[in-house]
């Protein structure tokens, strides 16, 4: 059966009508949030105290922690040095599918090295996961673990390459797509915990070697700063116990605030991330705590706000923050129609695994199994019927 377009059309109309009725309400909330941001722009100590008070009441609260910079501050781009190196990594994976003739997984990691004044370099690292590797601790390798392993390999490759490039006497920045906080973080799982520790170890080595690292979050949906401002409202209403549950500014996102504040090329104040998972980063070393700023990579008539995550060992040096800002802007200007760091785009292009490549890998594997006198398994009946549908 095809999609019932008539039903969907009615739903679209109904939902858009509801949205229209909420537009004014959201606008009012945004104005309120902007006023609060201005009112508290220099009251960092008050907000820190408030946050400290709330963290005893709501352990799952996720919001921004103010730095010493004015909350509504806007920091213009500084000129970048003439020479710098940017290493960007991205990963792609094939998740094991028990319905295929041969079960396997692949993690493909692409690295793009951009050096001023030289031809850029590409690196790709492909790893096939087979047999026991697909069942760590006798449990099937889930999407979550595979994504964590991919993230780990991205960071590992960045570190290895950064150490190779480090001899050059110019600043070196490593960049990944998405937050520095991992895709999923360990709760009780030992394997995830081990992978997380490995990740922290990579970050520690980067700190030790003086390598700047950042995570670039395109179109962020976060409301860390808005959540911080909500605490002020809850305090006035004497309902701090509801922090994290009641959302008096719900619907307003940080990008709404900062697209009104930041001129093209400007960054916001620095903030820390206050959350349980972020706290894990700084348990052993405060310098690994996660910080962020918003950056307007758009144009005067069309602001485009992104979030940049950096560890504290970068955030605490103003010159390093300025360097990250100017290099990201430089990179985004290369693709100015849809600003996005060129190096990250290229790393993705290098890493991405296409569907037809999955088929080639499966065939390679099946051929090798046959060459060794064995027989690969069969496609499951369910997959076989699915393939028939897609061929129609």
């Amino acid at each position, binding site marked *: 059966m095809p999609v019932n377009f008539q039903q969907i059309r009615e739903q679209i109309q109904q939902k858009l009508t509801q949205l229209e009725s909420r537009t004014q309400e959201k606008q009012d909330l945004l104005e309120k949030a902007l006023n609060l941001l201005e009112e508290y722009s220099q009251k960092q100590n008050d907000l820190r105290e408030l946050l400290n008070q709330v963290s005893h009441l709501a352990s799952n609260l996720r919001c921004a922690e103010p730095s010493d910079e004015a909350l509504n501050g806007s920091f213009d781009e500084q000129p970048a040095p003439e020479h710098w190196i940017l290493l960007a990594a991205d990963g792609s994976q094939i998740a094991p599918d028990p319905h295929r003739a041969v079960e396997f997984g692949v993690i493909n990691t692409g690295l793009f090295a*951009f050096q001023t004044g030289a*031809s850029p370099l590409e690196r790709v690292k492909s790893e096939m996961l087979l047999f026991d590797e697909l069942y760590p601790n006798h449990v099937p390798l889930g999407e979550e673990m595979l994504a964590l392993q991919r993230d780990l390999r991205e960071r590992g490759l960045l570190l290895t390459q950064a150490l190779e490039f480090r001899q050059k006497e110019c600043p070196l920045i490593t960049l990944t797509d998405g937050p520095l906080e991992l895709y999923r973080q360990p709760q009780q799982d030992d394997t995830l915990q081990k992978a997380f520790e490995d990740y922290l170890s990579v970050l520690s080595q980067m700190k030790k070697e003086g390598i700047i690292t950042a995570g670039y979050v395109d179109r962020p949906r976060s409301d860390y700063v808005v959540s911080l401002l909500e605490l002020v409202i809850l305090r006035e209403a004497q309902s701090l116990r509801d922090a994290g549950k009641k959302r008096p500014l719900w619907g307003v996102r940080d990008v709404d605030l900062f697209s009104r504040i930041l001129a093209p090329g400007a960054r916001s104040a620095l903030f820390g991330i206050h959350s349980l998972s972020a706290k894990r980063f700084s348990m052993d070393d405060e310098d690994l705590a996660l910080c962020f700023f918003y950056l307007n990579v758009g144009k005067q008539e069309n602001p485009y706000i992104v979030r940049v995550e950096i560890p504290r060992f970068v955030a605490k040096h103003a010159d390093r923050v300025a360097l990250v800002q100017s290099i990201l802007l430089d990179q985004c200007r290369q693709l100015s*129609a849809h600003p996005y760091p060129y190096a990250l785009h290229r790393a993705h292009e290098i890493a991405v695994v296409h569907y037809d490549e999955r088929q080639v890998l499966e065939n390679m594997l099946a051929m090798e199994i046959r060459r060794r006198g064995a027989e690969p398994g069969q496609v499951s009946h369910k997959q076989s019927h699915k393939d028939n549908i897609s061929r129609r």
Partner: protein
Amino acid sequence: MTMNTGFGRLLGASTLESLVGCRVTQENVPAFGSLVRLPVDDHYQVYGLVYNIHIEQDNTVRQLAATGNIREEVVRDNRENRTVPIEFNLLHVGYEDHGHISHLLPPRIPLSLEVIHLCTPAEVVRFTSAGRLGYFRHILRAQQAPIPELFAAHLLQASRAHAAGGDPHWIQRAQQEIIILLRDDYAALMNVLNALADVAQTAP
């Protein structure tokens, strides 16, 4: 000493022609009309003439083109690293099997990713001297190629190779053959002869 004449790889092929991709910084990027060979195995290779050299578009390149000041490093990346920026067609004009050159169409087509080699002057002389210039009919039959220009470019390359090998009269025989082949098509003949007149001014 073996010359490294490989410059690109086969992307697709039919009996009549092939599609080849190469990178711009590789040495020996062929000129329009160059004679090339595609070795399929130790005893068999296909010969072709380069035409329709073009740069494939992609969305990244489109975006970069719309950007005011692109960094030189980005330009180099797109020319040197990104996948096969230059493509061209090869018009098949013959083949070689166990040392015997034929100007018939190749009985077996080359396979994807075969390496394409630019013919050396000696190889050009060897191919164009074999038989009675029968491969000209493949050029005349080409649907998409600018036939007069392709003839002119090929004859310029071949006549130089023959002249250097001690046969300055090869081009006259080639022109005679073209006149014979096009005797019933005055318009086409004039187009080709006009292009060859330009060759005469350039050739040794």
